[in-house]
Structure formats: C-alpha cells, structure tokens
C-alpha cells in the first residue's frame, strides 16, 4: 500500500536555513546539509529545499548545498526558488536534485512547465502554487507570486489544472494565509485541488501539530504533507507526526525500520 508522505521543508537563504512567519521576519538557524541528513535519517520521506535567495551569486551557494546534500541523503530531494529557465532546471538536476519546483516562473512563462516536463519528464516537475483567499476568483482562491506579495488575477484551480495538462507531475499547494501560523492547513483549499487534479497534491502552509497532518489527509485527501518550522525548531519530530498519522489509520513509511 502506498504510504502518505511526510516532507520536511528547509527554507534556505544564502546557504543557511531560515524560517519566518509568512516569509518575512526570517530567523537564521542551521546548516541545511546537516539538517537535511538528519531529516532523512529520522524518517522524512522527502526533503524540500526552498531557495529564497535573490541574486545569482547566492544561488551558486545553493548548488553547492544541493551537491553536498545529495552525497549522503538518499531520499528524494526537491528544490524550488528562483528557477527561470531550462538551464536552471538542468543545473539543479545535475547537482543531485530529483525534482524542481516552479512557482513565479511558471506564472510569467507557462511554457516552462511544458518545456521542462518534455525535456526532463513530468516526474521531476513540481508546480508550486501559493494561494490566497479571493472573492472574485471562481474557486475562491487566487494565485500569488513573490512569497505571496504579488497577486496574479489567476484562479488557483484553473491554474492547477492547466499546470497538470502542461506536464506538472505534482502540485505543491501552499496556503499563504495559514503559512507560518501553525493553525493547521487550509482544508478547503487542499480538498478543492486534490479532488480535481489527477496528480498528487502536497499540502503546505500552517502545520502546527501532528493532528493537522492527520486532518489534511483524512478531510482533504492530500497525497503528502509538508512542514518546515514545526520540524526545524524541534517542536515535533517526523516520528511523532508519523505515529499520529498511523494511529489515525493513515499508512506511513516505518521510519524505525533502519537495518
């Protein structure tokens, strides 16, 4: 039986881990390579690096972080942030990333999803959607870019469907309203997208405790759950999240089965 995945996300800026509330007021703590290895050894089913660096110079540091992580981290590695073209894509995969998540670049240049999935396969193209509530959008949610700062006048559900049609193999769906709030995932948003696209949907934004993960799987049908700060600051471990999920009838990968 397929396990529901628990994904640990690391927000990285200039080679260091950060995690802030709603993507501003960032706190610095830790080395991403070491942290990714710890997560993979303690049961994370995937690691996701979100590079929030701005400049090209800083991005070079990220390539180095990915290469080093991939040497000893034998779980799938997704990298997102600042990907603008196919050569960024190729470079990340060559460093050892397994999947690349695209967000703003896909909004401004939807062709990139098609081109990258044609070139590298849809298994490695993750469409990241940052959603906010909107009364004027048919689905009730609008796509934003730049960490939620810019609205796009695009409907989340339409965009998700279009992304899948163009070749995205997975959707990383973040509720910007709940991101960093630790009040739980956005259940309505996740359910809406999960039920209407054919590819796996990763729920993101708002995990505060293991029960939130259980809820978004049971009530919204998420294929995977992603969290950053609750793991990063040691509030909850991956093991405690998986135990809670298992207790609630959700099949997870046994992370104590090491040898």
């Amino acid at each position, binding site marked *: *039986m397929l396990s*529901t995945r628990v994904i640990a996300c690391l927000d990285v800026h200039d080679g260091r881990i950060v995690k802030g509330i709603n993507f501003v007021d960032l706190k610095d703590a830790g080395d991403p390579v070491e942290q990714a290895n710890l997560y993979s050894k303690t049961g994370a089913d995937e690691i996701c690096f979100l590079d929030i660096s701005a400049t090209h110079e800083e991005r070079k540091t990220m390539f180095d972080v990915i290469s080093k992580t*991939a040497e000893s981290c034998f*779980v799938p590695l997704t990298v997102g942030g600042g990907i603008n073209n196919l050569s960024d894509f190729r470079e990340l995969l060559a460093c050892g990333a397994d999947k690349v998540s695209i967000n703003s670049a896909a909004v401004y240049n939807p062709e990139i999803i098609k081109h990258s999935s044609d070139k590298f396969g*849809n298994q490695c193209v993750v469409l990241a959607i940052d959603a906010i509530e909107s009364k004027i959008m048919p689905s009730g949610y609008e796509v934003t870019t730049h960490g939620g700062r810019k609205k796009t006048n695009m409907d989340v559900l339409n965009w998700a469907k279009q992304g899948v049609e163009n070749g995205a193999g997975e959707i990383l769906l973040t509720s910007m309203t709940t991101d960093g709030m630790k009040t739980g995932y956005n259940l309505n948003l996740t359910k809406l997208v999960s039920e209407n696209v054919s590819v796996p949907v990763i729920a993101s934004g708002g995990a505060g405790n293991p029960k939130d993960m259980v809820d978004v799987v049971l009530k919204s049908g998420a294929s995977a759950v992603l969290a950053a700060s609750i793991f990063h600051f040691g509030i909850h471990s991956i093991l405690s999240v998986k135990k809670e999920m298992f207790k609630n009838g959700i099949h997870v990968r046994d992370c104590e089965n090491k040898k």
Partner: protein
Amino acid sequence: MNLIIIDYGSGNLRSVENAFFNSITENNLKCKIKVTNNLQSITNADFLILPGVGSYPDCKKGLQEIDGLIEVLSEQVIYKKKKFLGICVGMQLMFDFSLEKIKTSGFSWLSGNFKKIKTVGLDYLGRNFKVPHMGWNSLQLQYANHPILKNLNEKDQYYFVHSYYLENNEKNQLIASTNYCHEIPAIVGKDNYIGVQFHPEKSSFSGQKLISNWLKWQP
C-alpha cells in the same frame, strides 16, 4: 571490479552514483564506479547499470543517439552475461515496448510491455488514485529466496515514481511486486539481469540494502 553507470543524457546519474558509492564504501567492496557512455568502457566493465528518468521515448532516443550503444549493451548483458541493473525507465527498456506517448520498442530481453496505470475506484482513505504512482510503497516478495531480496521484508518500502506499469510479463521472472490500485511488478529478472521499477538510490535504508544485495550478488 568496474561498475559502469551508463550516461545517455537521462536524469539522476549523480544520485545513482552517490548511492552506489555509499554502499560500496559501507560494505568495503572493491569496486570502482564510472559514469560514461564510452563503448570501450562498457565492454571492459564488470557490472552495468542503466538508470532512466523521464519518458520512455526520450530515454530510447537518448540511447539511440549514441552510436552502437544498444548493440554493445545487449551483447555484454545477454551474451557476455555481465551483471546488469535497470532502474525505472532503465528497467522498462528491458522489455518489448511501452505505450507511453507513442508506442516505442525496448530491447526485448524480457517479454512484456508497459501501459498506463489504472485508476479505478478510491484508495483505503477514499482518495482518488493519482498518477504518477509517486511515493513509498512496500513489496510483495514473489521469489523470496532470490539473493537480491536478502534481509528485505515486507516492511521495507521503496520510492516509486512512474505512470506506466509492466503487463504480459512472464510470471517466473517476477521477483517482487507492489500494489497501487492493482498489482504492479516491482522487481523483475532473469539470469544475470535485474530491473527495478522503483528508485533504490532514493529509497533510504531499504534502498541501500537492495543495492548492497545487488553488488554482492553472483549470478
């Protein structure tokens, strides 16, 4: 021993190299890894690995673009009996054909073909079956005493990411299967060659066990 990871422009060569390097080091094996498409190196190799991510037609095209590669590979594996591992699309290419995008022929080392995963009904939590079949899944060991399965059990899980599955295969070549909406062959093999539908290089501790089994296997 020389282990060659065949480079034909497809995918996650670094990940495969890293995972095999780790296993070689941890098991104190004397084995050198080289990532190449040089035909002479492939001819001189002891063990061969064909990785593969992306679509079936693209992978096939990538192989065909290297003049003589498919012929040399078939000769080394089928006639010279070199130990071989096909991973994901690398495994799929060992069979007759796939219907992904457009019907494309493989090497026909084994009989069987690939078609789109069925998504009938709902899973145990009432969710739709999504394609790709993406994530960690356990194996049903069909040929439990095969050396490749040593120390593995049904608690071990492997990372899958694929949309097409093997059908019309020979049952006696099925080593392990998985289940996602329906049964899906996960490890297949004959004589000196094995194919895995999942990614052992991305399957953490369980993947490392399988990799070390393959490295130590003497077909």
